């Protein structure tokens, strides 16, 4: 799965990057973020686009798997 590394980036950039990645890979992408706000924003965007995002936390970093 295509990976978007948005760690250290502040919103809205992780969401913009997710948007671009999903446009290129409509089947789904994996987004790495390191703040809860970004998890919320990326997940909200993915849900609005009809995906089913799942975030898993590990040491203050999250991997959000975005699939249909």
């Amino acid at each position, binding site marked *: 799965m295509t990976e978007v590394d948005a760690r250290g980036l502040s919103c809205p950039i992780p969401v913009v990057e997710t948007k671009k990645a999903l446009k290129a890979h409509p089947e789904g992408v994996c987004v790495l973020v390191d703040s809860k706000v970004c998890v919320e924003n990326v997940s*909200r965007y993915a849900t609005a686009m009809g995906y089913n995002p799942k975030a898993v936390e590990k040491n203050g970093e999250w991997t959000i798997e975005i699939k249909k």
Partner: protein
Amino acid sequence: MNGTKEKRNLLIGGLVIGIIAVGLVLLGNPKNMGFCIACFIRDIAGATKLHTAGVVQYVRPEIIGLVLGSFLTAVCFKEFKPRGGSAPMTRFIISVIVMIGALMFLGCPFRMILRLAGGDLNALVALIGFICGIATACFFLNKGFNLGKTYPQRGLEGTTLPAINVLLLVLAVAVPTFFAISEKGPGSQHAAIAISLVAGLAVGFIAQKTRLCMVGGIRDVILLKDWTLLIGFAAIFVSALVMNLATGNFKLGFEGQPVAQTNQLFNFLGMYAVGLGCAMLGGCPLRQLILAGEGNSDSAISVLGMFVGAALVHNFGLQGNAVDGLPATQGKVAVILGIVILLAIACYYTFAKKGENK
């Protein structure tokens, strides 16, 4: 947090903030200025004698409360995370310009909503400028605008601004004569220290939990067609409007509005600069205070930029003139030059990436 709960919290949070804001006016704050991050940072800059404009000098406990409210909330909910290092000097300059724009209009985005809710139509012109500024920033964001990554920092880096605010509070309570305090004008109008502080803490808590941001709301609609954050913005407007109507503080019109200026071109351009600059920073002045409380030292630098910006504005007479409505030439030049600099910075961080270490 799922979407519905998030929206509900923003709605309730926004309504409560609107009530607190008008409540502060009823308890002594200047009209339509229950909260104004730009004005209050300027007042603190005056109180600490960075500028000597006699009418706007007071250590506003609301600001201290916002930072500490966010800090305590972030610590309690394990969201305190010291981080920084994303183009701090550039953020400082952007923040100086944001302050120049805000003090031309005479208010931050938060006060713009409160002024609208008080019937001040100058704020409507400013809102259009603000939206245009954010739309301009969205253009750059879509093209790849990025000030760069932040990196984890040591604890002290993230606690410095909250600590400064504790010190400011202790000094303001223990030795108030240490600071300059306005005897007339907006700086002399304020609620009691304890009330202002508690109001700041409460709004700091709400804003930290809900991620409320005046810039983010409009930005998300333009960029992502996401209306979530705008709910907070709208809720503040509605509750402040109802409160103003109920307490006789609503006055519709352009003329004679409290702490306002009527040069509409510069109301527009001032808030255009604020919208553009804040969207580049990633959040409105309120959000910068909240993020600084969460340990973000880039946002702390932005707060310092606004602090210095406010001093520059009053030392060089760049502010919007609330008396006869005509801003001075140097103020107009500063706003226009500020917008040009913001656009140049936006171009640089969007297009000039090749050959750099990212």
